[in-house]
């Protein structure tokens, strides 16, 4: 017996792990389930390991103190060998993890894998998704910069909308009256101890159940899940047409996990770490806070909700959504698994995915946000004021000076909060323009108090020049009708 074998036996005699490991590794899986579609769960687990390792390495240097955190991130980025790379790996690993977890969930949903007897596996998975998002949010806070600071402000503002206990909840979230050192400390505890601990425990149970209950078989139209026959049918399937998980299924998992790790490393190397942005000094107010990528959709939704709907929406919809996810396997635990026979499920998935995609896309350029420096940074294009009267040119000055540009674009630059004004003269008459400027409305502030009558006249004259060549200006139809009637001979 070789030395190595002896050593192995010494440990095995004491650990007795060979039996359960062999059982787990060699358990039969349906042949068709050894598919590239089944690699996302293991990739998510690999990314979790990556996050733990890179997280520990970062924690060797990071200081979870409101006064020091930003400086320690700066040290990681700029003064330590590969500190920037580890931060980048952790940041990109986080993005990849959220993405892979979401893809894994979509795959499981599409393949009907949440049905009997895997309901609890799905339910644990829902909590794991929430924890993954929780890790992403708390991680963004630990990157203690301006975005983190004001992001916490948004979190506190949302909390404050909870009826009755909103105020205490804000203090609990912040660890005191304001966003400060105590806030960072508690988010550090959440990000480093509480959520990862729970996530690891849930992951262990999740994988345990996958091994014990067997991986979901490839859904076939007409193969109906029934509580009293399913387990028998599944075992029949794996007996008749099964292959051992190792190596038939595992090699694809290994390939994909390695590819994902390599992709994280390439992104980290090419794009570098995320931030930190400006120092978390609240008195620097010239900042436009943005959430991280996976919360952009929420940022978009919060800007489009009408004020009256906002609080109920923020407080009720997430609860309903989470309840729906948790109840899904309990209410739809039987029946068809195949996507060919589940049109409602697939339509729902596509609708949610497209909506999230659109909101995220909007979140990348935030058309609802005024561009705070457009009034001073984006001049009126010279060709627009080339052949205009002095009064109209004065109007262009008013247009710039009164920050109209922050919300209205002309010539392709400026804010998108309000409509672009390149052709406003074809849409609105002089009277309508004056009324809109003075009284506002339709989500525009009233400028009546802030503009002198000459300024209004100049501004409206300038706006009336804003129409594409060859297009007629807007006219008041009723006024013209009156004029026409006045001119026509009375019967």
């Amino acid at each position, binding site marked *: 017996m070789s030395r190595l074998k002896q050593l192995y036996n010494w440990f095995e005699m004491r650990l007795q792990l060979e039996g359960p490991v062999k059982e787990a590794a060699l358990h039969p899986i349906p042949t068709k389930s050894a598919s590239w579609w089944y690699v996302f769960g293991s990739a998510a687990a690999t990314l979790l390991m990556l996050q733990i390792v890179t997280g520990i390495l970062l924690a060797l240097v990071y200081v979870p103190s409101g006064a020091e955190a930003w400086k320690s991130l700066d040290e990681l980025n700029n003064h330590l060998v590969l500190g920037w790379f580890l931060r980048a790996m952790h940041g990109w690993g986080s993005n990849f993890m959220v993405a892979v977890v979401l893809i894994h969930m979509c795959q499981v949903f599409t393949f009907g894998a949440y049905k009997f007897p895997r309901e609890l596996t799905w339910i644990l998975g829902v909590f794991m998704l929430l924890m993954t998002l929780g890790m992403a949010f708390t991680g963004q806070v630990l990157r203690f910069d301006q975005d983190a600071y004001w992001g916490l402000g948004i979190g506190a503002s949302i909390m404050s909308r909870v009826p009755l206990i909103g105020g205490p909840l804000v203090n609990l979230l912040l660890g005191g009256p304001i966003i400060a050192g105590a806030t960072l400390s508690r988010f550090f505890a959440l990000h480093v101890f509480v959520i990862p601990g729970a996530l690891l425990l849930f992951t262990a149970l999740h994988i345990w159940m996958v091994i014990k209950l067997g991986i979901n078989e490839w859904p076939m139209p007409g193969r109906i899940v029934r509580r009293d026959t399913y387990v028998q049918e599944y075992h029949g399937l794996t007996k008749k047409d099964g292959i051992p998980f190792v190596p038939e299924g595992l090699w694809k998992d290994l390939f994909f996990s390695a590819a994902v790790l390599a992709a994280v490393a390439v992104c980290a190397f090419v794009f570098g770490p995320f931030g930190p942005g400006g120092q978390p000094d609240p008195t620097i107010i010239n900042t436009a806070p943005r959430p991280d990528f996976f919360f952009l959709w929420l940022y978009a939704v919060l800007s489009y909700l009408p004020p009256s709907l906002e609080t109920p929406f923020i407080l009720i919809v997430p609860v309903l959504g989470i309840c729906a996810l948790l109840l899904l396997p309990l209410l739809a635990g039987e029946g068809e698994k195949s996507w060919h026979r589940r049109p409602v499920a697939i339509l729902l998935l596509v609708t949610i995915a497209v909506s999230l995609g659109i909101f995220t896309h909007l979140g990348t350029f935030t058309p*609802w946000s005024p561009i705070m420096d457009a009034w001073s940074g984006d001049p009126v294009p010279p060709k627009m004021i080339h052949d205009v009267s002095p009064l109209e040119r004065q109007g262009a000055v008013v247009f710039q000076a009164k920050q109209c540009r922050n919300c209205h674009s002309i010539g392709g630059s400026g804010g998108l909060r309000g409509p672009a004004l390149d052709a406003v003269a074809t849409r609105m008459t002089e009277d309508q323009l004056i009324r809109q400027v003075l009284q506002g409305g339709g989500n525009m502030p009233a400028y009546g108090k802030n503009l002198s009558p000459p300024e209004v006249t100049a501004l409206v004259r300038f706006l009336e020049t804003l129409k594409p060549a060859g297009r007629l200006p807007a006219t008041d139809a009723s006024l013209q009708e009156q004029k026409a009637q006045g001119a026509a001979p009375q019967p």
Partner: protein
Amino acid sequence: MSEQKHVTRRWLLMGIGVAFNAVVGAAIAVPVIGYLLSPIKKKGTYYKWISLGKLDQFPEGQTRLADFVNPFERPQDGETAKTPCWVRRVSADKFQVFAINCAHLGCPVRWFPQSELFMCPCHGGVYYADGERASGPPERGLFTYQYKVEKGELHIDAGQMPTLADEAKLVTITGKGKSPCLG
């Protein structure tokens, strides 16, 4: 019979053991709930009168950015102990002190003296010079701090991040020298 008794006795002892642990555990854990909830204080505890400095730095008819150090500062807070606010001097002894936080989701609003508007960079909330809501998603005007003038200095009652949860504290509808309700 005797064997059954044995088992019963041991189960009983185990039951007592569990109960003993529960009692000790509860005795230790219950006070710790107080530790966890310690950031929650009685209404008004997180407020103190703070000076924003001499009156002459706030010209009449203008709105200026001021900042103060939070009265409940801790050493690890660093820069985050500072809080900015907007001071509008309406007349010699009439002020409005607005919180920096947008009433929508708490982002920092910026003052534009040319158009006399506060604008929020996050979701586009806009407020008039007197703090009243002009447009966008906020459901009310800017939060205001109570103020008083003492020995030529402007003092405000501040310390807690203003949110919709404690607007009762932050908006006073009546009272001399205080801001009108803007909501």
